[in-house]
Structure formats: C-alpha cells, structure tokens
C-alpha cells in the first residue's frame, strides 16, 4: 500500500496540459464504461449466486437438502462457503479494476499531450 498523502485536486488541476471539456467528457465516458462493465460483470456472478440459491431451494429441495459431511448442501453453501466466495470475487474485482485504472492513467498521459498538440 503506497502511503499516498491526501491528493489535493486544486494543486493538481494547475497542470499545464488541461484538455478541453469535450475531450474530458469523452474520457470520463470511456472510463466509466470500462469500470462499469467490470463492476457489472462481477455483480452478475454475485447476484446469480445469491438470487439463484433461493430458486434452487424452491425448485430442487431434494438437492438442497443433500447431506454433505453432516451439513445439508444448502446450509453448507449459505452458512459457510458463501463468505470465501465473496472474498474471491472481491479480490478479482480489485485486481482488474487496478489494471483498468493504470491503463486509463497511461492512455490519459498520451491523450493529454495529443490534445495540447492539436490546439
């Protein structure tokens, strides 16, 4: 964890390569699309698990009540295994999201220069 001090936007905004508003709009849109797509992807996995389990319990009660080492299958999944599954999803998301951010920051460096040259 880098010990970053508080990023103060006011000083950072003083940079001399401020792109024009239209470029910013485009940039913001592109960033949100990429980050949003990742969030939605992970949330679909998560939602299909947490919203699918009630359906499994409802439609296939004999599968849900299957005994697994003393637990019923559905109890083992919801009461024990669900937690580590959310950790995995969370770790995956953070990795992927950091990668996207690094790419955006890199592309932005290039684009900012472009914008300046075009002016």
């Amino acid at each position, binding site marked *: 964890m880098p010990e970053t001090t508080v990023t103060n936007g006011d000083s*950072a*905004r003083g940079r001399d390569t401020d792109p024009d508003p239209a470029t910013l709009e485009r940039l913001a849109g592109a960033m949100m699309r990429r980050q949003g797509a990742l969030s939605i992807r992970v949330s679909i996995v998560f939602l299909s698990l947490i919203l699918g389990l009630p359906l499994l319990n409802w439609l296939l009660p004999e599968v849900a009540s299957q005994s697994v080492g003393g637990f019923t299958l559905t109890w083992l999944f919801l009461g024990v295994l669900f937690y580590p599954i959310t950790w995995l999803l969370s770790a995956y998301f953070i990795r992927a999201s950091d990668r996207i951010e690094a790419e955006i920051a890199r592309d932005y460096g290039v684009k900012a220069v472009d914008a300046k040259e075009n002016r």
Partner: protein
Amino acid sequence: MTGFFSLPVLFVLAMIIATVALGIHATRASRTASDFFVAGRSVSVFWNASAISGEYLSAASFMGIAGLVLKHGYDALWYPVGYAAGYLFLLLFIAGPLRRFGAYTIPDFAEGRFDSPTFRKIAVMFVLFIGLFYTMPQMRGAGLTMQTLLGWPYWAGIAVVGSVITFNVALGGMKGITVVQAFQYWAKAFAIAVPVFVLMNVYGGYNQRLAAIAAAPTDAPRVTKDTTLAYPGKDKAPNNAVAFSSKTGTFLKLEKTAVLDKVSTFRKAEPGEDVEAVPLLLPLTPDLPRSEIAQLRQIIISGKEGNLGFERLPTTAQLVGKPFPAGTELVALPIPVMKSGEPVLLNGKPVVTAPKIEFATPTEAVLPAGSYIPNAQNNQKWISPYGTLTGKHGYPLLYTYSLIIALVCGTAGLPHILVRFYTNPDGRAAKRTTFWVMVLLGCFYAFTPLWGTLGRAVLPSLLANSKHDSVVIALPKALSNPILGDVLSGITSAGAFAAFMSTFSGLLVSMSGAFAHDIYGRMLKPTAAPQERLRAFKIAAVFVGAASMGLGLLVETFDIALLVGWAFAIAAASYFPLLLLGAWWKGLTKQGAAAGMLIGGFLSLGAIIFFMLLDKKVITAEVSPLTRALLEQPAVWGVPLALILMVVVSLATRQSVPKDIGQKMLRLHAPEEMGYSKNYIEH
C-alpha cells in the same frame, strides 16, 4: 451467578473501562475539528478495515443472528450473509467513486454532485431516520444483556449503557473511536469464536449437531428437566404467547396467579374449518383429573361424547379474563383440524393444530421434564429453507428476495459506515479496505449460526418464552462446570457490550455530526467557528443519545435482527439509489434524486412503522398476508420504486443536469494520478 460481583459482570466492566480509557487516551491526540469528524483521514488499510468491521458488528450481529437461527434455523442464515455480502456491492459500485469525490458524508455527496445546498438538507434527514432505527436494536441488546446477566429491569441496562457511550462520544469524537472500534472488532471476534470451540468440545461439532437434527425430521426440541418460565403480560405482546406443540398434549403448571388474555390455535383456521368447536386448553380440576386426559382427547378427536360429556368442559370464554390460582395445571391438547365433520388432510395425513395462549398479566409457569417446547418448530422446518421466518405470511420466496435486496443494497446506504471510507487516503485504498472488511466480517459471521445450532440442541427452552436473543449469553451458563460457564458467559457478555457500544457510538457520531455539521454549521449558523461546531456536536450527541434510549424502551418485544433489517431496508430505498445513480448516471438530476429518495425512503419507513404497530396490536386492521409480507419487508418494492422514480423524474427535468457533469464524473471515476479527485470539505 447473578450477584453484582460475579465473573460475567467483571468482564463487562473491564470492557467498558477499556473502551472509555482508550477513548480518553485517543482524545488527547484529537485536536482540530477535522480530526474530530473524520479522524484526520490518515488511517492505514488494516486499522481502517478493523475499525469499519468493529463499527458494523452490532448487537444484531453478535446476539441477534444467533437468536434468530435458534428460532428459525436456515432462513435466518440470510441475515449474516446479507450483512457481509452487502460490502461486495459497496465495493463494486460505490466505495471507490465516493472516496475520490472527496465528500465525506452522504449529504456532502448530495450537495457536491448536484450543486444544491437545498438537496443536502433533504438528504440529511435520512441520516437521522436510519440512524435512529439502527440504534433501537442496540438499545434492546443492552437491555436484554443486563436482564440476562444481572436480572436488571430492561430499562436499567439501556440507561447505563446508553449513558456511558453518549459520554464517551461527546468527549472523544471519532478519532477516539477509530482506535476503539478497531480494538472492539478483535474483542468481538474473540468473544464469538473462542467460547464456541469450548462448547463444541462439550456438545459436539457444527456438522454433528446439524446431522442429528436432519436425521430426525419430525422430532422437535424438548426440555430435559422441569423448567420454570417467566412470561410477561399483554403489554409485552407477542412475547406473552405460548404456542403449544402439536405433537402431544403439554402440561403447564402455573406458579403464580395467571390471567389469560386469549386462547386460540397456532394455525389460523381457513374458511369452513371448525377448529374452535371445543376448547383445546383445559385447567385440571378434581372433576377433570390428569388420568382422564388421554381418554378425553380420544373423545374430542372422535367427536363422540362418551360418558365424560362435553358439558364438563369449560368454554373458551370461560377460560379468558378470570384468574387461575397459583398451582393450577393447564393442559393443552392438539387436535385434528375438522371441516364439516371430516378431518382436513395434507399429503394424506390429518392436519393437527394445538392451542396458543396469551397471558394478560406477568406470570410464571413450570414446563415438566420431557415436554415438547412451545414456540419451537420441528426439525424439518428448522433445517430447511422457507420455514417460519420467510414463510410466516405464506409468501416465502417473495420474503426471501425482499430480505436479500434490503441487506445487500442497504449496507451501501448506512450513514455511519460510508463516512469511514473517507478515512482512506485514496480510492484504491478504499477498495482494499473493503476487501479486508469482507474477510474480517466473514470470519465473524461464519460463527454466528453455530451458536443458534448449539443453542437449539442444548438450551431450546429459551424459545418457550421468547428469550432466544440472549442465547450467546445464556448458552455458556448451561455448562455443568459453573466457573467455566461464568468465564465464557463473561467473554460473550463483554463481546455483546463491545457490539452495542461500537455501533451505537458510530451512529451517534453520524447523527450528531449531521446536526453539528449540516443543521447547525450550514443552516442555522453558517459563520460558526470550528470551536462552536464542536460544542454543537457535543450537545447534539447528548440529545441524540437520550432520544435513542427513549426509543430503545419501545422495542422490547422485537427481534434484534429484524429491527436492524428494517434500518437496512430504509437505507436501501433511500441512500442506495442516490449513491448508485449519482455515481454512475450523468443524467441524474437533483429533482429526480430527491423524488426517488424521499418517496422510496418514506414509503418504506411508513410501511415498517405500520407493520410494527400492527405487530404490537396498537392498531388493528384487516391486512392480507401478502400485504403483511410487503409491509414487513418493503425492499422488494421500495428499491425499484426509488430507482424508477429517479430515472423518470430526472428525464423529465433534464435541463437541471449540472453544467460541469463531465468534470464531476471525472472526479468520481478518474484514477488519482490524473489529479481530478478533490477533498470536498477542507477544514
């Protein structure tokens, strides 16, 4: 065991002293107003994650879930999972953007995102609604713990605990609490995990207990020795109710004079069924001795009068309202449900129902050894999904989904939790913190159903008079070694104290902060100096603390976990849509956000309050089971309603999208290196 200087009490005192001392110690380091409100924004990921978890694990987590699992079994597992999994949603959609935006309360975000000081005033209301709703179960936990430990009256525990915490918050603010909250996470994790290993050693492991329950699906828990049960009167409804087992007849010997308020059957009669044709509850008299009960039951079932004669039996009306002297033995007989002279069948077996009585005045009664325990469902219902929690209104799938939506979406909208994310140095740290919070919470929550499971095996009598919420305190005391029992019960009591102390402090800081920062500092006196705001904060803390204690007195009869679930449901239908759409949809306008938040939030709040009043029988209204389910769990309609309103109204008021929305979106989503994040509030 109940003396003031017993071991459990010493443990609790040690916990309180450690908390206050840590708070005072940390206060010395807290000088400026900004320190006071958000702990100087420089807390490391590990400590921050511990502190968030410590603040989050409330009485509902520590006591309520175990109690709810003891009572309802599988259905209650949704609570801990929802509490923990809510953070994943927070991580995916909200944690990073909100930290980057640099606002540190939801009202800050509301104002900054829409350039509207008016909207901030609207947004701040829900900090108070959600906060007060959330403090009620904490107070209930405090009252119940002191009742169980020391036999104090319910209000005394609330008064003592509430005052200690209010004092601590007024002195220390939040800087104090970062250290205290982190310490309290570890105290709670220790207290929930360590005693349960000892108990498993004695009573058998998690899977063993569950396997035993699954192996005897039609069985139900019984008492192993004569058990004295204290029942409250009508004013504590529904805890004055005894729903007898429908497996065999149950005897109940009154130790004190008792007056019945109501005699009915547990199963509500469907149209055409005649369940109340004969009384199912009888007092034994010389005229009707115990030896004739079996015969009597046969006669009632067969419907033939025989030589006993129905005229010897009292009518329901004769049972209600007049006192039975101490020593009276009541017998409750299950009978098949009849419909025009024929038994009603379900899957080829006759449907049986048993009496349910409600006491009018407080009393005590003895349940003899071997009796099936009233208010307890059978093993099959307990261990399977769609039992008595989600199925109580007859719409189990709807209830389950509504509960999941409330818990998952509500976590993101809790005012005292989001504020903690601003103590992260940047959005990236905010995400890492969320991950560690999920790990810490998961480790904690995995233990909570274990307490309910062991409780059902060892101490099911707690169900007979609705004391299930005290299982984490009461279960260790049932150990045959009294010293070990006292030590373990002391540990869990101290953990329970840590739970309501930490959550209550966090809520108190949020609510007092809203008063000092928003209502006083922005509306009443915008020119206030930091010192004046600090004083306003302290005064607000005292008032909010007192209000919470007052509200806590009103909720003695509600399950802790249910109460917290309601705070989540309100947050899910108000703040969650605001944060989600505010961070991800450019087109959201202040009119849209306000409409969705107010209508979604207020309708959910109204539905819940209406349900509480119905449940306490303060108001009586003919309400269909479906409506009841939707009132009790409003998230399934509240959240979509708020989201849809926000979208529709925003589209209609498109012209008020802020001009610099592109900038704002950059601030929310651009990585820190790009320099668009900003600290919204600078002290």
